[in-house]
Every structure is written in structure tokens, then in C-alpha cells.
């Protein structure tokens, strides 16, 4: 696997975890997820629309998140917000456990 492919695949898996983490804190709309992920990761993850929305569609189809429309004050057009469901919260906890377990194991190997 080429270096670039490895990075892409690695990132794709972890982004789901990052997005769910944000949604456990508060509801978000698409653009705010992009900004938050990029700011918090110091732009190392460089999340783009073409990556974000397919992940959101997948999560929504699996009922891990759900969307709703809301019109903000002073803004004519409604925005689509995403919120995490109860199934999603469970999924997030499980994913986080797996992530810690795997990264812990890999760190042990690398640091030995």
C-alpha cells in the first residue's frame, strides 16, 4: 500500500470517531463539523466536504446519527443539523475503547 493510501484509509476510519466525539458534545451542521475537526486537529486531518458528507450519510443510514432542520435567528434559510442517537452514543463508547486498545498496543510495539 502506498504511503498516501495508507494515510487515507487510516484517516477515514478515525474521522468517524472524531465526528461522533463532536456530536456527543453538541449538535452540529456540516460546515461547523469541518471547521471544528480542522481547528482541533491543527489542520492535520484536513477534512473536506467530499469526505465528510459520505461519512454523515453512512452514519445516518445506520441510525447512529440523525438530522433535523433548524432556522437560526436572522438567517432565512434553514440549516441541517446532525445529532447523535442513543445507538450512536453506544457505538462511540465502543469505538473509543477499541481505539484506545489498538493505539495502546501499537504504541507498545513502537516504543519497545
Amino acid at each position, binding site marked *: 500500500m502506498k504511503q498516501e493510501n495508507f494515510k487515507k484509509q487510516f484517516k477515514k476510519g478515525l474521522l468517524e470517531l472524531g465526528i461522533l466525539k463532536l456530536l456527543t458534545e453538541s449538535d452540529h451542521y456540516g460546515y461547523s463539523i469541518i471547521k471544528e475537526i480542522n481547528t482541533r486537529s491543527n489542520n492535520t486531518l484536513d477534512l473536506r466536504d467530499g469526505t465528510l458528507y459520505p461519512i454523515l*450519510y453512512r452514519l445516518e443510514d445506520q441510525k447512529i446519527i440523525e438530522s433535523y432542520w433548524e432556522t437560526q435567528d436572522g438567517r432565512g*434559510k434553514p*440549516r441541517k443539523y446532525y445529532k447523535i442517537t442513543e445507538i450512536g452514543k453506544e457505538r462511540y463508547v465502543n469505538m473509543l475503547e477499541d481505539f484506545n486498545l489498538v493505539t495502546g498496543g501499537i504504541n507498545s510495539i513502537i516504543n519497545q
Partner: protein
Amino acid sequence: MKYDKESYLKEVLKGIHTDRKTKKRIKEDLGIRIDDGYKEDPFFDLVIEMGEPSLVAEDFMENLDVIYPDLPFVIQQMVPYEYRSKANIFGLPLVHIHTGGAKNSSVAKGVLAIGDIAIGLVSIGGVSFGLISIGGVAIGAASLGGVAIGAFAGGGVAIGLYAAGAVAISLLKGIGAVSLVMFK
């Protein structure tokens, strides 16, 4: 190239080959995303902030689950394809090949058109319209197909001035297992 919201969305969607429902979803979400960008920054530049439309489309295609588990494997491998020759005649490409892949139907328009739906001087497709037309359903001056309609028609069911087929319905002359000639 400078884009406005509509032309940008159109360009992105042109490169995304998936079902209509997902395309609609993407159009809606990217539309709101662009509105948000302009709201926060009046000088919001679509290409700088979001990338060239072709790259955005590529990114979507890479991340969308475009494999349909309910379809047989061979059908899943049918990917969308488009080729348009640089040479044009009367504004039409000399050759246009356009297929929507496993789930979508695309229209090919050219002097030689090959596609799910083909319209051209010479057309080959699932449904084809042309001077010379070959297809599942072929309509043209000279047509050959499962169902062929034309001045000269040949096929399973052929309807024309001159028709040849298993079932031939003709105005002037017909050849077939079942042949019906209107004016003898």
C-alpha cells in the same frame, strides 16, 4: 475558472456517479455548505475553500459506498463511463460514449453515439434513436434491434416500410415468421 454556487454544484455533480437520491442529498448539503461559507465570509472563494469541482467529485466518489450489495457481482463491476471526442461536427461530438453503470442510465449524443440511451447519426444503445440505429429498442431510418422501428427495420419485432423479423409489421414489404403487410 470562476464559479457561482449553481455552476459549482453542477460541475461537482457532473463527476459524481451514484443514484438520484444520493445526488439530491449531496446537492442539498453542498448548497447549504456554500451558503454558510458566504455568510461567514463575503469574499468566500469556492475553489480555494472547497477545491476544484472535479476534485470534490473525486473525493465523494472515493468515499461514497457505490457498490450495491443487492446486485450480482458482474453487474456491480459496471461502472459509469463517459468518452467525448474532441472533434465536433455541428456542435455534436464525433463520438460520444456515455453509460451510467450499474444503476443509472445516461444519454449519449453524438454523430456516433453509444450509451444507455443513444441519440446520433449512428446510434447504438439500450434505447437508440438515429439515422442508423442499433439497440434493444431502436428507432431510426435504418434500425436493427429487439424492437426496431424505421423505414428499414430488422429485429425481433420489426415495424417499418420494409421490415424483417420474427414479427414483421410493414407498410410495403415484410419478411418474418409472422408477417403483416399493410399495402400489398
